[in-house]
């Protein structure tokens, strides 16, 4: 089946930890043009070797620092000002 609509770049904001059903569904739903931001418990994905993250992925610095994951460099980190910029840039946003 071909896609019914043209892909609209989507910002995915994910706060569930790896292993949570919604974490898995979110990763499956991400398309090539989309941006993923890991927040809260989802930043544990940086330490989880079983997780493959998409290329366009950032993690919230405050949540990474809180969990002592700053040695994990699988993704870049962003602050809330940058998250605001990303939400302004994307007209389509899904909070998982």
């Amino acid at each position, binding site marked *: *089946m071909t*896609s*019914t*609509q*043209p*892909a*609209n770049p989507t910002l995915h904001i994910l706060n569930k930890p790896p292993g949570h*059903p*919604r974490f898995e*569904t979110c990763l*499956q*739903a991400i*398309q090539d043009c989309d941006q993923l931001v890991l927040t809260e418990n989802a930043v544990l994905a940086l330490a989880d070797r079983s997780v493959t993250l998409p290329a366009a992925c950032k993690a919230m610095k405050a949540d990474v620092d809180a969990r002592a994951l700053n040695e994990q460099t699988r993704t870049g980190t962003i602050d809330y000002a940058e998250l605001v910029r990303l939400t302004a840039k994307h007209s*389509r946003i*899904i*909070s*998982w």
Partner: protein
Amino acid sequence: MSTLIIVDQPPYGTWAGREALDMVFSLAAFDQPAALLFTGAGVNWLRKQQAPDAIGQKSVEKNLSAAPMFGVEEILADTASCERFGLGPEQLVSGVTLAENLQDVMNAHSNVAFAG
């Protein structure tokens, strides 16, 4: 502009599924295009003949079957999730459309949201 509300939590253990239904009925009441998608363990909301009296809850079966009358455009269920939980078409409450591809369903709506 249309809104897709996704239910991925199983029935009765939390209120999130009911609160998702309230959201979609509210959109419909204000003439906003709205659809429901059940996926993951959420598809268990769609099993026929639920009898939650003994756990002190109400079945949502009637609410779901009334959804089209209230203007809810579509009730969709993820096919793979239905298969996983052994839900054949004959076990599903009426009025549910099976969806093969979650990405297509989500792309067909301008807003996608969860109740909790």
